[in-house]
C-alpha cells in the first residue's frame, strides 16, 4: 500500500511541478492545488493503514486501539485550510496582475520592480491628498 501511495504522491507532486513551471498564472495556481492535494495524501499516508483500522472516533470506553491516528487528519485540516486560503489570495492577485499587465504569463511580467514603483511614499502622499490614488496602470 505504501508503495502505491508513494507512487500516487510522486505523480501528484510531479504533475504539480509541471503545472507551476508553465507560463500561466492560472495553471500555476492549479499546480499549487495539486501540491496541496499531494501533501494531504502524504500526511494521511504517514498515519499508516491496515484493512482493519477504524476511523478515529472513540467509543464509550474511550479506548483508541485499532483506530486511525487522529493527528495526521488534524494536520491535514489545518494545512488544507491554510493552503486553500493562500490559494484564494494568490488567485485573486493573479487576476489583478493580469488586469494590470494584460498577460497571464509570469515570464512576461516586468522584471525591474522599480520601473513602476509608485508607492514611494512621497508620491503616494501627494496623490492621496489630491484625492486620486496612485493608479499607474497606464503610466
Amino acid at each position: 500500500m505504501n508503495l502505491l501511495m508513494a507512487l500516487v504522491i510522486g505523480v501528484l507532486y510531479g504533475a504539480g511541478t509541471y503545472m507551476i513551471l508553465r507560463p500561466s498564472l492560472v495553471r500555476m495556481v492549479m499546480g499549487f492545488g495539486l501540491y496541496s492535494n499531494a501533501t494531504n495524501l502524504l500526511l494521511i499516508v504517514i498515519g499508516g493503514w491496515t484493512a482493519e483500522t477504524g476511523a478515529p472516533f472513540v467509543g464509550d470506553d474511550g479506548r483508541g486501539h485499532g483506530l486511525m491516528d487522529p493527528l495526521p487528519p488534524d494536520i491535514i485540516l489545518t494545512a488544507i485550510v491554510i493552503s486553500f486560503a493562500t490559494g484564494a489570495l494568490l488567485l485573486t492577485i493573479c487576476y489583478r496582475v493580469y488586469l494590470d499587465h494584460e498577460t497571464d504569463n509570469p515570464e512576461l511580467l516586468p522584471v525591474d520592480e522599480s520601473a513602476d514603483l509608485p508607492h514611494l511614499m512621497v508620491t503616494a502622499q501627494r496623490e492621496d491628498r489630491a484625492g486620486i490614488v496612485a493608479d499607474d496602470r497606464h503610466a
Partner: protein
Amino acid sequence: MMLSPTASLPTLVFIPFVGAFLALCMGRIAGHKTGYLMVLSALASFILAAMLYAGLDPAAPVVCAAEWLPGVDVNFRLRGDGFGLFFALLVSGIGTLVGIYSLSYVHLSDNRRVARYYAALIAFMGAMLGLALADDLVLLFVFWEITSITSFLLIGFWYDQEIGRKGALMALQVTVGGGLAMMAGFVVIGAITGSYSISELAADPSLREKLVAAGMLTPALLLCLGGALTKSAQMPFHFWLPKAMVAPTPVSTYLHAATMVMAGVFLVGRLLPILGDSPAWTPILTTVGLVTFFLGAYQSLREFDLKAILAYATVSTLGLLMMLYGLKAADQDVLQIWSHGAYKGTLFLVAGIVEHATHTRDLRKLGGLRKVMPITFGVCLLGAISMSGLPPFFGFLAKEAFYAQLLHGEVLHGQPVLQWTIIVLSVLANAFIFAVACKLVFGVFFGPPAEDVDAVDHHAHEAGIGLWGPAAVLGLVALGMGLAYPITSQMVNGMSSDPHAHVHVSLIPHDIGPVAMSAVTVLLGIGIYLMRRPINRLQDALAIIPPMYKFWDWLMAGITAVSVTFSRQWQNGSLRWYFSGVLLFACVLVTAALNRADFLRHDIIVKPHDLYWPAVAISGMLIFAALILVRAQVRLTAALASTAIGFLVALLFVIYRSPDILLTQLLIETVSTIFILLVLFFMPRFSRDVVAPPVRLVRLIVSILVGFTMATMVFLCTLPELRTEDNLGLGYLERSLSEGFGRNAVNVIIVDMRAIDTTGEITVLVVVGMAVFGLLRTRRHKA
C-alpha cells in the same frame, strides 16, 4: 588636579573623543573657533603623554587594564611603554601644530561643515592615540579602523567634487580591506594563543610557540601584514596615498605624512617580537620595503604636484621603515619616524601655505616665491635640507644610521649580493629624494614664475604666523634635533620598540662607510637634479605598466561586472527559474542526505495482500485525472480536472478512514472550483505552450525529479522498518473522550488539544478575507 599615571593613559586617549563630540555639538555656533578644541585637546593629550614619558620606567610601563569583552578574551588594555608614548607624543604634538595651522587655513562659510571637519580631525587624533597605546590587538584594531573612518571623512572634505569622493573611497576601501585581513590575523593569534595582549605575547615565548606548533605563525603574519602594508601605503598598495592628497593640507600633513601612514609601520614594530620568528618576515618586509623605498623616490621625481611629490616621498620613507623592520633593525625606528615626521610635516605645511597663497600646487606654474614669501622660504629650507639628509639636520642623523645598518646589520651579514643590491638601491633612492628636495626648493622659490599664473605676482603674499608658525616649529625640530644629537640619541634609543636599542646617533662620523655613502648620495642627487628633464623623459618612456590605482579600479569594475551579470541572470524575475531553483535545491539536499545510508537494501516488494484494491483503482483514476489536468489546453477542462482530483483524493481519505477531512476536502474543492470559475471569467485563455524545447525538457526533468524524490521519501518514511509505531496517535485517542469530552478525536484535537493551531489557521482565513477585500476595493475605488 593630578591624575595618576594609570588614569592618565585612558584620559589622554579619551580627551580627543570628548573634544570631537563637543565640536559636533557646538560647531554650528562656534564655527571656525571649533579649531581651538583641536588645539586644546591635542595639547592636553601631549602634556599628559609628556608627563607619562617623564615618569616612564622602561622595565615596568604603566598599564591601564579593564575588562571589556571577557567573553571573547578582549580587554581594554592601554600600556604606556616608550614606543607607544613616542607615538602618542608625535600624534598629539603634530596634532597641536596642525590644529593651530588649521585655524588659519580652513575658511568655509558653512559652520557645520567646519565643525564636522574638526570633529573628524580630533576623533582621528584620539584614535591614533589609542592605537599607539593599545596593548590589546583587538583594541588596537578598533582604533585602527576608527582612523580609517575618520581619514575617509577627512579626505572627502571636498565631497561635492568627484575627485574628492573618489580619493576618499579608494583610501577607505584599500585600508579597510587590508584591515580586515589584519583582523583575521589578530583573531588567529588570539584564538591560538588565547591572548590578545601585545605585551604578553611579546614577553611570553610559550604563547608564540603555540603559534609555531599550530603552523599559524606565517599565515598570521601574512594576514597582519595585509593591514600594515595597506595602511602604510607599501607597494603595490601605495596608490591610495597620492589619491588621498585631495584632502586639505592640514589633513595631508597630519594623516598622510606624519601619523596615520606610520600606523602600519608602528604595527609591524609591535609585531616584530611576536611574529618576527616567521621565516617569511625578512624576505617579505625587506622586499616590499625596498621596492617601495626605491620606487616611491623614483616616482616622486616624476611628479609636479607639490603634494604628490611629497606623497611619493612619504611612500618612499615608509618603504625604508618597512625594510628596516624587515632587516630586524627595530632599534632605529623612532629615529627614522621622528626625523621623517619633522621634515615631511614642515614641507607639507609649506606646500599648504604656497597653495593658499598662489592657488596652485603645480611646480611648473610656480617659481620665484623667495622674495614674496621669505619666511616660508626659510621654513621650507629647514625641511628640505633635513629631507635631503645634509648635516646638521635630523635627516642626516637618520640617514647615517640607516647606512650604518645596511653596512653592519646582522641579517644581511654573509649575503653580499643581497646586501649590495639593497645598498645600491638605497643610495639611489636617497639620491632621488635629494633631487626631489632640490626640485622643491628651486621649483617653488627660485626661477621665474610661469607666465600664465598671474597669481604669483598679484596675489601671492606672505602667510600669517598661524600658518608658518607650526611649520617653523617642525622645521626647527628637524634642525634642533640634529644639533642636539646627544639628547636625540638618548631619546630615540629610549623610545624605540627595541628595548635594547643603542643606535649610534651623532653628527660626528665614527665610521667612514656611511659618510662615503652619504657623499655618493649627495653627488648622485645633484646629478639627478641637474639631469631631471632627460630623466623625466626616460621615466615617461619606461612607464609601460599602468599606474596601480587603475588595477584597483579594474578590479572593482570587474567585480561589479560579475555582479551585474549575476544579478541579471540569477535574479531574473522569472518565476519558472525561481521555482526550479527551489525544487532542485530540495531534490539535491534530500538526495544528498539519502545517499549517506544504503536504503536500497530494504526490499521493495509489492505485497499483494497489503494492497487494498479499491485504493489501487482510485489511485489509477487519480493519476489519470492528474494527466488530464497536465495535458489540458482548455481552462475549464483544467478547472474540472482539478476538482476531479480533489474528489478522488477525498475518496482516498475514505479509504484511510478520515471522515472529517473527507468532508472538508469535498467542500474546499467545490469552493475552489467556484473561485477558479469566478476568476477565469477575467483571465485569458490558456495559450499554447510557447516555450522552447530545452525549457520544456528541463521542466519535465525537474518535474520527474521532484516526483521521484517525494515518492522516495514517502516510501521510505512509511516502510514498516523505518516508520515509527511509537507515535502520539494513541495518546490523542485515549484523551479524546475522557479529557476532551468528544468522541471525534480529530475534532477534539482541532478545537481543544491543538486549538492554537486552529487559531492560526482561522487567523489566516480572516486576513485573507480582509486582504482580498482591501486589494479589490483599493483598485476599484481608484478606477
